[in-house]
């Protein structure tokens, strides 16, 4: 708890300091503190039209406001923009086809590590990203990590938001178990889960083939024990004592979870939480959003609160964020128009509406937006505000590359924890198996 307050306070102080510098140049009307920086000169080409591909909505305003902002761009510039929404699982293959064939949409709002697979096919975003960074108080940690080509200062993508999955819990049930808040300490967290289970409101974390939730849980277990998949150079380093500790902890935690988590998919914890079957899980803002907006379940939302995942030994939130990374492909005939479109979407007049409408589902990558009204509109949302400031990423501590994505997609870590939790493997065997599988992808 102490750790958590300090971290949060530092971030708030940081934002405040930035706000102070920013406010000088901008009228007090705007809640978003900005610095007076001239936008990059990118005159849209004559007769430009744009096609944008992005993942489908998780909450309704994500689509409606995004479309409205796009329409405002067309009205302001006369450039028609077509936005296509595709299912989350189809986005990666479609990005690949676009990249490999050099045809299709100009801009893809893709998954975090995709720009790193196609970096030579992308238009540099450095100028635009630096402008936005200067104007809006700088970029958070993860957008910078995912936006820049590994080990350089060249922006290959423009991060537009990040989604995190902190602890979502029922305040009254956690109180009933004897805790006022979610303990950062792992032993106390285990104790909390044990008591929740005893009281009939167990915690639930997916250990099934759920790309988002299960990988989030596995990464939390790993990182909270100060372990990691690969070292800084990208050598597989999972076979270490800390991983064994994490596996033993997972095994102790498992019987206190609701039965059936081995087959949970990404929607299961949302359903179980809404049905009051579980009292605690890790999830994005979507659970709370849905409960809050339905009068029948508003009661549950009122009894719901959020907290960071227990820090454990990490000393900071042991979680990453799903970064929405905009890529502009070199095959685009209108790169300036496309950059102008991205700039327009990221400017406060548009961006703040989107951020607010989604209740922060895609949290801002730019620090100044921490001042957005959405984060004070409901104190329960505050935890999502600095999600992009998390300091872990897919394939931590190694470079962001295709291998890290393959490990996630093939559930290597999830299966390691699932096998030990369910008693199908000993920690030592499971970690060797995970090492073997990870090495298959990190070989080249």
């Amino acid at each position, binding site marked *: 708890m102490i750790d958590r307050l300090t971290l949060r306070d530092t971030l708030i102080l940081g934002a405040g300091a930035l706000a102070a510098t920013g406010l000088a140049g901008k009228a007090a009307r705007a809640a978003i503190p900005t610095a007076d920086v001239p936008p990059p000169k990118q005159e849209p080409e004559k007769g430009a039209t744009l096609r944008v591909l992005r993942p489908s909505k998780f909450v309704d305003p994500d689509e409606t406001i995004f479309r409205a902002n796009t329409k405002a761009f067309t009205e302001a510039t006369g450039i028609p923009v077509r936005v296509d929404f595709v299912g989350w*699982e189809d986005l*990666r*293959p479609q990005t*690949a086809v676009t*990249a*490999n064939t050099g045809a299709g949409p100009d801009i893809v709002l893709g998954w975090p590590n*995709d720009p790193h*697979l*196609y970096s030579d096919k992308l238009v540099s975003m450095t100028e635009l990203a630096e402008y936005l960074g200067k104007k809006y108080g700088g970029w958070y940690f993860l957008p910078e990590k995912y936006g820049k080509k590994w080990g350089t200062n060249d922006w290959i993508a423009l991060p537009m938001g990040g989604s995190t999955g902190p602890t979502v819990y029922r305040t009254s049930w956690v109180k009933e178990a004897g805790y006022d808040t979610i303990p950062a300490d792992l032993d106390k967290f285990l104790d909390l889960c044990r008591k929740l289970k005893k009281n009939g409101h167990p915690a639930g974390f997916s*250990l*099934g*083939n*759920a*790309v988002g939730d299960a990988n989030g849980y596995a990464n939390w277990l790993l990182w909270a024990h100060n372990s990691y998949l690969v070292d800084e150079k990208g050598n597989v380093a999972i076979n270490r004592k800390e991983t064994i500790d994490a596996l033993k902890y997972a095994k102790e935690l498992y019987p206190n979870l*609701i*039965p*059936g*988590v*081995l*087959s*949970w*998919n990404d929607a*299961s914890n949302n*359903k*179980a939480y809404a*049905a009051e*079957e579980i009292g605690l899980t890790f999830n994005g803002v979507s659970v709370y959003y849905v409960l809050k907006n339905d009068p029948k379940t508003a009661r549950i939302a009122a009894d719901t609160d959020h907290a960071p995942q227990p820090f454990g030994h990490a000393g900071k939130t042991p979680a990453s964020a799903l970064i929405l990374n905009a890529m502009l492909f070199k095959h685009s005939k209108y790169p300036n128009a496309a950059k102008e479109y991205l700039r327009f979407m990221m400017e406060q007049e548009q961006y703040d509406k989107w951020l607010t409408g989604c209740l922060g589902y895609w949290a801002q990558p730019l620090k100044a937006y921490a001042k957005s009204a959405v984060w004070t509109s409901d104190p329960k949302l505050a935890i999502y505000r600095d999600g992009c400031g998390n300091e872990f990423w897919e394939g931590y501590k190694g470079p962001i590359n*295709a291998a890290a*994505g*393959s490990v996630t*997609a*093939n*559930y290597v870590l999830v*299966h390691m924890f*699932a*096998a030990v939790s*369910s008693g*199908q493997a000993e920690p030592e065997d499971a970690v060797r*198996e995970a090492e073997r*599988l990870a090495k*298959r*992808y990190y070989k*080249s």
Partner: protein
Amino acid sequence: MDATASWTYQRPTQTALGRFFDNRAVLVFFCMLPAAGLLLIFLTYPLGLGFWLAFTDTQIGRSGEWVGLENFQSILHDRVFLNTVWWTTFYTVVATVGKFALGLWLALLLNENLPFKSLLRAIILLPFIVPTVLSAIAFWFLYDPQFSIISYLLVDVLHWRDTYIDFLGNPWSARWSLIAANIWRGIPFVAITLLAGLQTISPSLYEAALLDGASSWQRFRRITVPLLMPILAVVLTFSVLFTFTDFQLVYAITRGGPIDSTHLMATLAFQRAIPGGQIGEGSAIAVAMIPFLIFATLFSYFALARRKWQQGEGND
């Protein structure tokens, strides 16, 4: 030029082009071309590309180089793949046996004179008509660890159990759940095709057998089974192929979980190739299905379609 030449009635001499097109072989070639083109573009090319990719180290976003058999060597040392091969075979065998036993039984029932016969036959087809993904999602709800209606009935209504059934949470129950779903979905195809086969059997054969005092088992064994064999062989071939290459049921219900225990070769190939980005390895897994499919086809086609099997003659 001689303008006074008398005109004689004769067929204009054929141009070279005309002769060319009158050639039977050429004509056949050109008439076949559209069909062959379709096959080449939509069947041979993807298959050939899949084959080619299996021998490269292609990844999403990076074209690969020829690596020979490396992908195959790699998957042969991968326990996940070997388990998948075993489970795919098991799934195919058990589900096919189940489908045939129940499908044949259903076909025999439907062949009797029942009230509302055509209505019943229409209902039987329902599982086959519903898109696979929809039925898979329905099964996924039936098997949900928290919201399963089966668990609800057993625990909260009938009080036969204390805990909800964890259908998909451990390897074996997940496997049997998937087999049950596959059988449910496959029965109509088998039942309706076998019913068609049954109706081609002349009733006079049964009448003659009755007059000779054959029991109902003897009639089934000596008349129904042999005469049904040819269609059985065809249906079996198709059924084995469909089951072995199944994707949607498993992908929608378990995604191959828990812990990769229910991955079929098709779902594993997809997971490795598309979400995982390792197109070469995924293709190798897909190509590895081909020998199994060829074997299954040859077996059911040649073995079961043999006349002496059908007519019960001894081997010579």
